[in-house]
């Protein structure tokens, strides 16, 4: 194992320990805040497979987040016996929606892709808004009944913030491991080559639409994981989960943290909630600050906070190496 790999392993280990210890150190409010950050982190990571790695800016990703949230909530309202199965069905519904939306959307590029996904997202929004008998209309679905989580003989009561924290943490870690593996695979390299140069990729024998669709569906799937967890976390599903302004949130987080670094969206999610948390102590009007942070970030640090830090470090290391030679 070389130095950098050992450093990375140590860092991962430290992060795991931190995740495990935190809920025993901080209060309930913080536990819930971190839970929400992890859920939104999953959402932002899923979005970035499409944006950062495939080069497609989706402005309708809340559709998959919301579809999963609604399916999960719908099942749990109707006394569905298994939490995990409800989450799974919600996530599969999101993936199914992503297959349909993706099938059409991946034909387009850039702004047109962004607008079309936005349009599809809003179609889902109007659907849950209007289909009162199933979705509860603008009130959404409330009053989720959480069955206890049975794993083997072990039964966990998920309604306590601490145990739900750990469930979300497990999903968070699984999402990271799976997506990390995907972006570093042969498939991931092909996605990146499509991002870099669609035309060259096509003339190399790559079926652009098929790969984009695969990326879109995987991305929708994990957005679904986040959406289901969010509905459980909030004990409700509401139309605002699918509104285009909700689609903007993973975009903001990703840009805050950095789209070309794997963990950028997670850092972005932490910053996003940190900014919200600090500012809402003084005033409800916090988006103005988010905007005021976003604008200089886009102008001066297009790689995001984590991305910029990483390039700085790399440059310093290179400079040091050159100095030694």
């Amino acid at each position, binding site marked *: 194992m070389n130095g950098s790999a050992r450093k990375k392993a140590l860092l991962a280990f430290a992060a795991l320990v931190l995740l495990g210890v935190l809920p025993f150190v901080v209060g309930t409010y913080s536990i819930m805040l971190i839970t929400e950050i992890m859920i939104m982190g999953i959402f932002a990571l899923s979005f970035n497979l499409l*944006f950062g790695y495939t080069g497609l*800016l989706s402005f309708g990703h809340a559709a998959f987040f919301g579809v999963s949230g609604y399916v999960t909530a719908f099942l749990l309202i109707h006394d569905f016996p298994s939490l995990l199965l409800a989450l799974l069905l919600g996530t599969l519904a999101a993936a199914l929606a992503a297959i349909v939306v993706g099938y*059409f959307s991946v*034909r*387009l590029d*850039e*702004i*047109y892709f*962004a*607008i*079309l996904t*936005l*349009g*599809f997202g*809003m*179609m889902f929004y*109007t*659907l849950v*808004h*209007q289909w009162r008998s199933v979705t509860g209309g603008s009130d959404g679905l409330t009053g989720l009944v959480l069955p206890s989580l049975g794993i083997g003989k072990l039964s966990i009561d998920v309604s306590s913030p601490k145990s739900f924290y750990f469930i979300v943490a497990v999903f968070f870690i699984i999402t990271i491991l799976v997506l990390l593996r995907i972006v570093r695979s042969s498939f991931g390299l092909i996605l990146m080559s499509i991002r870099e140069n669609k035309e060259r990729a096509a003339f190399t024998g790559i079926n652009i639409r098929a790969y984009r669709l695969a990326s879109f569906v995987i991305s929708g799937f994990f957005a679904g994981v986040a959406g289901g967890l969010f509905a459980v976390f909030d004990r409700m599903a509401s139309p605002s989960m699918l509104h*285009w*302004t909700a689609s*903007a949130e993973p*975009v*903001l987080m990703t*840009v805050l943290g950095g789209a070309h670094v794997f963990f950028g969206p997670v850092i972005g999610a932490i910053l996003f909630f940190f900014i919200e948390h600090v500012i809402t102590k003084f005033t409800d*009007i*916090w*988006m*103005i600050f*988010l*905007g*005021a942070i*976003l*604008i200089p970030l*886009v*102008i001066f640090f*297009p790689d995001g906070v984590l991305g910029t830090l990483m390039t700085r470090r790399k440059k310093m290391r290179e400079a040091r190496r050159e100095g030694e030679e």
Partner: protein
Amino acid sequence: MSLFFMNFLNGISLGMLLFLISIGLTIIFGVLGVLNFAHGSLYMLGAYFCFQIVSLSHNFWGALILAPVVVALVGGVIESMLLRPVYGRDVSFQLLLTFGVLLVLDDAVRLIWGSGYHIVDPPPLLNGVVHLGGFTYPVYSLFILFLGPFIGLGLWAFFRFTLWGKKIRASSMDREMAAGIGINVNHLFTGVFMFGTWLAGVGGALAAPLRAIGPSMGEKIIIESFIVVVIGGLGSFPGAFLGAMILGLINAYGAQYLPKATMALPYILLAIILLTKPRGLLSKET
């Protein structure tokens, strides 16, 4: 029958407003290559400025002249200070930057005027209703209806016959060529952005007596005007007109015939057009 006719008028007058907003959006895209996410917020700003001026001076006509000018100044600041550094980068950066501007403007409005709704009365001249066959119709809506074509014609003449109009059209066709024949691109971009935001401001000020003024009015209209410019063809002048009329009529008749689906109709239309004519109805590319 009279309901049908009334909805026709409603659709056209809504279309005229959408046209004013979309035309600015499409001109900015055509020349600068930027899809301005903050355009709806600038429209909203026009409405708020109008409200503010009217409540201070009780002069609607003065507000109608002044409010858009102030909006255009805000636009000038946005273009020259914020947008200029990100030209030439990926389009998503420009979209995100203007999205940041949207967040700032929307909350700034909340900070200054609060989260509640405000109302502006139409000027006395245009207050009241007229009887048209079987129904009554607000005079102010008719005013918008008739004003729209005049503004459209005025813009057409501006682009057709004035030097600035020709410069703008030339640059929207070929930016490099424009620089080559000695057009100061920086000035042109600022000018075009201000012009586009001025139009948004005019739309906002005109809409002020028509709609409740609230902090979410930009959020709604920006999506509608995105749809207008995309179905018409991004950067296309007649496209914006066609798109605005279609969307206005869809909204009006949808409410009459398909009340449940009316919210979804614009999005369905958007998807169908993007998938069959990806560059919009009035584009020559296939």
